[in-house]
């Protein structure tokens, strides 16, 4: 009996130590040593990347390979399950040499980036990134990521022709969404006023919260009120429940596509592009997908972008996962130095060519803005007009908002129940961070 108890205890100890190893880092290398000096060549680096990466990003990786003599092995993380795929792989203790990941503080904390990645704060790109470096991959004032992709700007993409046919102008508020929906249903029964991509789950969070909450989160005011415990997600008169209630009302009014519970992000963009859906709540990351479905000119002719919030026209933004890179501590100094070299290249010698090819807005100062396609120009205008930080950016545990919002639209939760669930997730993450 004693022997079996000892065996069980040993097993448990081994298990715990293995798990602990998977969560911590074995790297003892000094960050300052890694950030200075020449980058090694002839190194093979693995990168976990999002399959939604634009061609411009893929070409940037190739340009790095050519310039450095190093090789990048891309490990595909499917866009539809991107956060889960990364989290599950990360949890096993596996580490890439370069990690493409969300820049949100909440997402960075979920990988315990402060412990597991190299602090890049002293690198040259940080100054060029300006305020974005204080948001993207930033924990407690330290920058752990280089974000070369323009932030994800969230709002409403709408089909210009559907709107013109119904004699409507671009929506600005949730009341506009409701009234536009009524008109669109009357004008053409074949057009879904709003496309809801419930099958992918995460897009449901945009209409249920991101857009509605924008006006309440200017200066991250709402996020701060939650993290300082001066407000709760469950406050009956708070904007979180109000946002979900407004979105649920749109659903109950029949504004969504008939396959709202199984629809996908990619199909939502196709639908808005071809006019079978008049609107979709999404981010500027969708533009690259739209451009891959049709020429930029066709996209510009058919699709417009509008900043929409509860009662004001305010867009919201978050650091993009597409083009935000971390250097995880792997314990292999040579590879870590090479990965730092990759960051130097993409924010230095390779950056201008990337911006030119992407046709997007540069995030680093000193690089000329290329001629923007009309849709990008609309996004930039909404961003420059004072976009607020997206509500999920700084509240721990908010990675669950998509699935919870999907339950709301599937009629399985009320807005109050959904808020209770999110409050519990927040408290769980907050407790975990404090432990």
């Amino acid at each position, binding site marked *: 009996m004693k022997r079996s108890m000892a065996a069980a205890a040993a097993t448990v100890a081994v298990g715990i130590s293995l*798990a602990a190893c998977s969560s911590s880092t074995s790297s003892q290398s000094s960050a300052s040593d890694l950030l200075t000096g020449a980058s090694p060549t002839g190194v093979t680096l693995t990168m976990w990347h999002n399959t939604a990466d634009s061609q411009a990003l893929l070409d940037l990786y190739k340009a790095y390979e050519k310039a450095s003599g190093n090789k990048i092995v891309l490990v595909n993380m499917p866009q539809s399950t991107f956060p889960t795929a990364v989290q599950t792989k990360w*949890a096993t203790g596996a580490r890439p040499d370069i990690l493409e990941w969300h820049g949100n503080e909440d997402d960075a904390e*979920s990988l315990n980036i402060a412990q597991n990645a190299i602090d890049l704060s002293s690198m040259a790109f940080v100054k060029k990134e300006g305020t974005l470096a204080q948001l993207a991959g930033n924990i407690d004032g330290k920058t752990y990521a280089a974000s070369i992709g323009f932030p994800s700007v969230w709002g409403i993409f709408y089909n210009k022709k559907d709107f013109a046919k119904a004699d409507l102008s671009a929506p600005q508020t949730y009341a506009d969404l409701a009234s536009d929906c009524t008109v669109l249903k009357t004008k053409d029964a074949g057009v879904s006023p709003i496309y809801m991509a419930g099958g992918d789950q995460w897009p449901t969070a945009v209409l249920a919260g991101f857009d509605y909450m924008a006006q309440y989160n200017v200066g991250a005011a709402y996020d701060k009120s939650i993290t300082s415990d001066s407000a709760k997600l469950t406050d009956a008169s708070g904007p979180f429940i109000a946002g979900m209630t407004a979105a649920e009302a749109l659903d109950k009014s029949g504004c969504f596509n008939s396959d709202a519970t*199984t629809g996908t992000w990619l199909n939502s963009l196709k639908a808005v592009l071809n006019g079978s859906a008049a609107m979709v709540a999404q981010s500027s990351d969708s533009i690259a997908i739209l451009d891959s479905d049709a020429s930029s000119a066709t996209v510009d002719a058919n699709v417009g972008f509008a900043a929409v919030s509860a009662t004001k026209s305010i867009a919201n933004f978050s650091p993009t996962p597409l083009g935000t890179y971390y250097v995880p501590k792997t314990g292999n100094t040579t590879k870590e130095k090479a990965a730092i070299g990759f960051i130097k290249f993409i924010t230095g010698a390779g950056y201008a060519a990337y911006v030119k090819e992407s046709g997007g807005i540069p995030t680093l100062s000193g690089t000329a803005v290329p001629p923007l396609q009309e849709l990008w120009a609309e996004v930039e205008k909404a961003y420059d007009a004072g976009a607020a930080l997206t509500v999920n950016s700084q509240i721990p545990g908010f990675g669950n908002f998509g699935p919870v919002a999907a339950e709301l639209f599937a009629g399985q939760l009320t807005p109050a129940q959904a808020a209770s669930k999110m409050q519990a997730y927040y408290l769980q993450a907050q407790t975990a961070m404090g432990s």
Partner: protein
Amino acid sequence: MAAVKVAGAKVAEAPRTAGPSGRNRRYRLWFALPAIVLVTVFFLLPFIANGVFAFMQWTGYSTTIRWIGLGNFRLVNELGILRHAVVVTLIYAVTGLIVQNVVSITLAKALQQTNRVNTVFRAIFFVPVLISPLAAGYIWAAVLSPTGPLNTVLPWDHHYAWLGNSTTALLAVASIDAWKLSGLITLVYVAGFNRIPRSVIEAATLDGAGAWRRFLAVEFPLLAPAFTFNVVLSLIGAFSALDIVFATTAGGPGDATTLLNVAVYNEYGQGLFGTASALSFVVALMAIVTAVPLIGWLRRREVQL
């Protein structure tokens, strides 16, 4: 030492090798060793580790892992995840069990005789067993989509989202799982039917029992060993289901098809490893608590031929 006695006289001592001597036991242990190692490494150790982590606070947010007792179970219960996932898993298991066994018994009865035609059909019905569960899921997701072939062949004209409604999605996914395994279950039932002595069937026929009566009163009870095997296989399969759900609904709409294993994956994917372990522990408990008594009960009703 055992000895053979005739009328009280000791006539011969049983050879030493007849019983499991110490040397023989050791010899047999070598054969058992690979299985023991495999079970220990791939089942016992993970099971014990999972049991321990179920009581630990372990998340991606922190490198600290600490004991929190029933905290993880309490949390998944408060979030409504535990109860919902258990209920959905049970409905899934029962639906799969019924569909799988009804379809397979019917098919087995139809294909019982071994001839060329039946052999071809047995092979055809076995093909789904060989298909990757993910591939099967994607195929069925396309078939059941609002614009898919199923809606096209149905007599009424609409685009019903079979996987978009909470009830039909759960029933559909469980049925796909049942369809996938039905070829294998059918073969087990065919063997079970063919194991029944012809004389018993002929006796029942002479006694005036019709086909239905013969099936219910004679064949089905004698099919008990195959039934036990198939029921347990169906249940354990349902408790460990994940891939088909992923390929068809990913747990949706909302959380309508979020089985325990899907919930485990979702928690794990959020970096909440402690709660994922707690849910995983529940899966193991459910399998043990359900399967063991069920096997015992089903075994008792088996008839020795």
